[in-house]
């Protein structure tokens, strides 16, 4: 009998860690038991997006979207849905707004507002099957390029499309290609920057896991356009699944004659090697990445000469980010005009974001440029959970900035975000609510960048540490008003004098929080108050005499033995000296009698 159902089980790293492989096995086992193996196929795909709801799976042709599936649900799903056609309601995605169960993926707002170009195949095809990639128009663009186009025609299409680097800086991709094409050298290299290091970012990982051939095809097209013969994909060793799927894809492409010598029997030669990075943030900087591939210590090199002129092993080198590579084949297939019809004049196309933090639907999303931050956070992200108010959204990771509520209607574009003191970045987007302390957030990013500083230049190595000292002082309650000016002055010096992008952008989180939330810095300094009640040195725990019923639960649970009292005789009392401000009493008190205060003298 012919196949009538495709069951797509998400096998992105997030779903794998919530045991999607066991779900897949259980489903296959139940399908086998019911004698439906010929009619139903279970396919593993890349990331579908709503990672928080994993393991997720999608059943076609009806489009039923299951969430939080466990292996023990397999029998019910097979018996009820696959055999009798009754989707298992309790496992379907429920629309939080309408409080109704959604029967088809099409009706889910999270998916509805997205425009999938780069992620088109993610969650739709089996990333380990080159046949499925080919079925989804894979390698057609490469075939057309090699047999029907001249190298400069390829570069012209990319230039005309207006595609800009998705790594974050937004440099026009076509121009970069042209520089490398114009450069002379014995050999030329094409490199994929997959050194994704921003906290909370997983766009590159998901694309490499979900559609590895798209990156390979993009790189091969570029190699033909600029005249390169070797390629490297630089990827973090901490992404084992992405590496495995890439290796599978590379061998399949070689075997099919789509990589290696004589590609598409045109005589064109190009091959790709995977290089694993050890996880240094600075290796995302292109010259440090080049040093790392060469086997040197991963530190930045002086530019110019730019890699386009003298890069890897001293040869002209074209470096693009994973998502940029993912766009190439679509632009070749559909044309520059089509690409420009998506997004805005200055920022055409789509952008992938990893949505995380205080937002209902965390996960991977792709939107057309020009969509407002509000639409992304509230319509796709579903807004801030638990009724806590929205405070800010952080874009661009440790190099970016925080954007407050009054600018939520800003369209997402390279320039507009820059004007606000943030950056597009590679696509990390962290939502913050009223429980986030902005000084603490700035401190968090500074801790990250100062520990990731390679130490090569003094402004970054020493300057970031001094900034961190000041931020620690402020959050400890020992800050003084001149500290705010010191932070601003130090930031300027570090930006002006650092050797590479890491130092040049590291002060951004401090500057943007100072720009929009300077009052919080002032409160920490002048009133010793942390309004979000995050900075432990500035908060005190107190038991409300009237609300306390003297049950003793708080005292029993206090790890510091800081609470004393007699059962049945309220109130219990917290010894402020002994209290470690862990918040356990607040969590366990059944009567809400524990209060947290800040700035009360």
């Amino acid at each position, binding site marked *: *009998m*012919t*196949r*009538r*159902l*495709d069951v*797509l089980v998400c096998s992105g790293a997030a779903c794998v860690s919530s045991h999607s492989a066991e779900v897949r096995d259980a489903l296959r086992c139940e399908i086998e038991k019911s004698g439906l193996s010929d*009619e139903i196929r279970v396919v593993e795909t890349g990331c579908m997006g709503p990672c928080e709801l994993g393991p997720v799976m999608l059943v*076609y*042709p*009806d*489009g039923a979207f299951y969430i939080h599936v466990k292996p023990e649900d397999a029998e019910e799903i097979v018996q009820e849905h696959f*055999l*009798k*056609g*009754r989707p298992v309601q309790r496992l379907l995605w429920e629309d939080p707004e309408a409080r109704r169960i959604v029967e*088809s*993926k*099409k009706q889910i707002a999270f998916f509805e507002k997205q425009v999938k170009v780069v992620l088109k195949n993610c969650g*739709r*095809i089996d990333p380990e099957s080159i*046949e*499925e990639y*080919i*079925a*989804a*128009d894979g*390698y*057609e663009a490469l*075939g*057309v390029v*090699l*047999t029907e186009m001249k190298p400069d025609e390829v570069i012209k299409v990319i230039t005309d499309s207006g595609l800009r680097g998705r790594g974050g800086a937004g440099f026009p991709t076509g121009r970069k290609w042209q520089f490398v094409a114009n450069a002379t050298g014995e050999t030329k290299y094409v490199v994929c920057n997959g050194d994704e290091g921003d906290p909370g970012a997983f766009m590159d990982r998901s694309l490499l896991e979900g559609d590895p051939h798209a990156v390979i095809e993009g790189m091969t097209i570029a190699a033909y356009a600029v005249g390169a013969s070797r390629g490297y994909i630089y990827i973090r060793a901490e992404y084992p699944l992405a590496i495995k799927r890439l290796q599978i894809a590379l061998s399949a492409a070689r075997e*099919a*004659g*789509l990589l290696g010598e004589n590609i*598409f*029997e045109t005589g064109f030669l190009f091959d790709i090697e995977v290089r694993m990075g050890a996880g240094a943030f600075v290796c995302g900087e292109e010259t440090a990445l080049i040093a790392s591939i060469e086997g040197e210590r991963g530190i930045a090199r002086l530019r110019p000469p730019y890699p386009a002129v003298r890069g890897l092993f001293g040869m002209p080198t074209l470096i693009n980010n994973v998502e940029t590579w993912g766009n190439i084949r679509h632009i070749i297939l559909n044309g520059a005009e089509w690409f420009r019809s998506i997004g805005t004049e200055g920022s055409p196309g789509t952008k992938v974001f990893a949505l995380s933090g205080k937002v209902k639907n965390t996960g991977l999303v792709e939107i057309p440029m020009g969509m407002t931050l509000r639409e992304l956070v509230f319509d796709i992200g579903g807004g801030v959970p638990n009724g806590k108010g929205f405070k800010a959204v952080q874009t661009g990771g440790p190099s970016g900035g925080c954007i407050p509520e009054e600018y939520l209607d800003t369209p997402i574009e390279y320039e507009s975000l820059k004007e606000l003191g943030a950056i597009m970045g590679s696509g990390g987007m962290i939502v913050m609510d009223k429980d986030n302390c902005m000084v603490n957030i700035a401190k968090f990013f500074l801790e990250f960048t100062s520990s990731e500083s390679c130490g090569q230049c003094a402004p970054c190595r020493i300057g970031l540490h001094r900034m961190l000292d000041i931020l620690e002082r402020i959050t400890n309650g020992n800050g003084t008003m001149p500290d705010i000016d010191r932070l601003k002055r130090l930031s300027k010096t570090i930006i002006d004098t650092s050797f590479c992008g890491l130092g040049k952008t590291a002060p951004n989180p401090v500057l943007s929080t100072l720009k929009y939330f300077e009052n919080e810095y002032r409160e920490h300094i002048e009133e010793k108050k942390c309004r979000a009640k995050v900075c432990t040195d500035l908060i005190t725990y107190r038991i409300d005499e009237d609300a306390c019923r003297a049950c003793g639960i708080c005292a029993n649970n206090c790890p510091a033995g800081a609470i004393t009292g007699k059962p049945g005789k309220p109130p219990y009392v917290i010894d402020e000296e002994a209290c470690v401000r862990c918040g356990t009493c607040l969590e366990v008190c059944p009567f809400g009698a524990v209060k947290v205060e800040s700035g009360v003298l």
Partner: protein
Amino acid sequence: MKLEDLRKIREQAAKDLSLRTGEARVKVIVGMGTSGIAAGARDVLAALVDEISKRDLRDVVVTQTGERGLSSSEPVVEVRQADGTVVVYGDMTAERARRVVAEHIVNGNPVSEYAIEVREG
């Protein structure tokens, strides 16, 4: 591999992905409740899927549903067009199902002798 070879592979492989587009001109829904299965709905379903695949009708999807309440007319098959027009057929057999595919789905003439309900879009 040449570009023509790639295109040949794609044509073959594309059938594999056709289920996943989520777009369909016609949706055929087979009642697979207990009484439907008892009356032979599994054979009807198999015949439908087979006929549709033989004719390479890529814009037709076959799905199932539960009990409709019309136990006496089982197996029941519903044919739903994209414009919302619905024809429900009763007392289906594998053979009759193949006729529905040929006459209704391909040629656009509902098979009135088996139809038990018609709703305009």
